[in-house]
């Protein structure tokens, strides 16, 4: 479960990116986070991953109190999250398989678990045949599916994606969203930041709308009004 209570966040240069945000995302939910450019969506993601700290308020993520977490606990908290970025962030020198093995090893997985888990996850994102390819030998959509596989491979409670479709064409975007919905149906909480109004409307999921660091709408359905300019 993710819970933000009266969260404020100010960057070092004085930009007040988040101003009094309160919201709760239950386990197993699928949530779109939308809003205009610069409204604070990525900042919320960074607050969830512990990349930046709030200057006021409380943040709870999967049982960890992020607002006053100890340095030792941050890695444990991050293991409950799988993060996906617009630019994939795969390691180009490593094959698809090794990209996944690498993050499993990083959290202390044993070779046996790694050998068992990776084929399963690659099957899930439909990339079983491309395990030995390098990222540069894959299409954008395939690379993003590798990134999803990587986010999933350590079996996190929650997947957080910051504009995962930003670099994909509409068909690939739809495919990717369908994949995230499928993952959600398998039991993982999914939070997706996106600009793509059509997609959001299409899925009829919960949508949280941010503007100027405030939550201005939180409802099931689609985009509110014509406010979003992306």
């Amino acid at each position, binding site marked *: 479960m993710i819970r933000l209570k009266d969260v404020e966040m100010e960057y070092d240069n004085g930009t007040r990116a988040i101003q009094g945000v309160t919201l709760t995302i239950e386990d197993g939910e699928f949530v779109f986070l939308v809003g205009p450019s610069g409204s604070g969506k990525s900042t919320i993601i960074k607050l969830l991953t512990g990349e930046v700290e709030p200057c006021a308020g409380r943040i709870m993520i999967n049982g960890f109190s992020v607002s006053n977490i100890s340095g030792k606990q941050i890695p444990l908290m991050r293991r409950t*999250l799988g993060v996906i970025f617009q630019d994939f*962030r795969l*390691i180009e020198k490593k094959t698809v398989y090794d990209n996944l093995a*690498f993050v499993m*090893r*990083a959290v*202390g997985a044993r070779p046996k678990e790694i050998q068992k888990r990776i084929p399963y996850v690659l099957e899930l994102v439909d990339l079983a045949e491309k395990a030995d390819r390098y990222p540069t030998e894959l299409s954008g959509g395939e690379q993003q599916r590798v990134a999803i596989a*990587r986010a999933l491979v350590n079996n996190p409670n929650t997947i957080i994606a910051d504009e995962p479709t930003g670099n994909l064409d509409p068909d690939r975007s739809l495919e990717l969203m369908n994949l995230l919905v499928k993952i959600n149906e398998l039991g993982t909480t999914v939070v997706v930041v996106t600009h793509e109004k059509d997609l959001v409307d299409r899925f009829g999921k919960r949508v949280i709308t941010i503007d100027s660091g405030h939550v201005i709408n939180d409802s099931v359905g689609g985009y509110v009004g014509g406010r979003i300019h992306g």
Partner: protein
Amino acid sequence: MGKHNFGYFFHEGLSNMFSHGFMSFAAIGITVACLLIMGTFTLVAVNANELLVDLEQENEILAYVDDTYSDTAAKALQSDLEAIPNVASATYISKEQATADFSAEFPEEAMFQDLDPEIFEDRYAIKIVDLEKMSETCRAVEQVTGISEINAHEEIAGGFITIRNVATVVCVALIAILFVVSVFIISNTIKLTTFDRRDEIAIMRMVGATNGFIRWPFVYEGFMLGLLSAVIAFFLQWGLYAAVAQGVDNNDTMQLIRILPFQQLWPAVAGIFAAAGILIGVGGSLSAIRKFLQV
């Protein structure tokens, strides 16, 4: 979790080292040079110290007994002399003994044979513990009632000690500087690897790798650079030392200098090089990754 994945960290550290072949080569070169300079100075100091010990053993103070003292009275002074701090032993030499010794020293000189013992004085040959306190000891010996005069090579001892002290200071300063330089170079080599691997590090942190896990490969890299430098430096030092020892041995004017055999020194040299190499390597890697693993 919890288990230290030695094989993995070792493999990663090794591949880090090879990914920057030239930089690693340079870092090893500098560290080897530093260790060699340290080692050479230390070995010179060790040998000088050994010579000093020889000098201490050979360097006696001769204390002459007042010639109004009888043989028995002169012998009685022994306990007074041995009570002086820093005196290792005081050996009584009667004028008869001194005469005989003198004659024996110049067997070819006819005029030095059959000398009258009365031209000699009863004396003590005093050995001291610490050469550095020689002057104090001389003064104390002079104070003893019944000692008329002393004869000691205070200047030689003083000069030698000054040289040794200066050498020690220079040596320590040089070692400190070279140490810092080596740590700096290794640190920069490893910074290069961390820069190379910044994407991997970012991903590891994102998925919840502990700082320890991220750090270890770099610590291994530093450790291996340091240890490899130590091994290379050791063999070079050995060769260098053997060559110098040979040279001294073959040189007639340097016959007085006794060089310790390397066989006697190598365990200490190996130990010190390994310790210094590892310290430099690990120190360098820790300084490289220190600031970059906060949060």
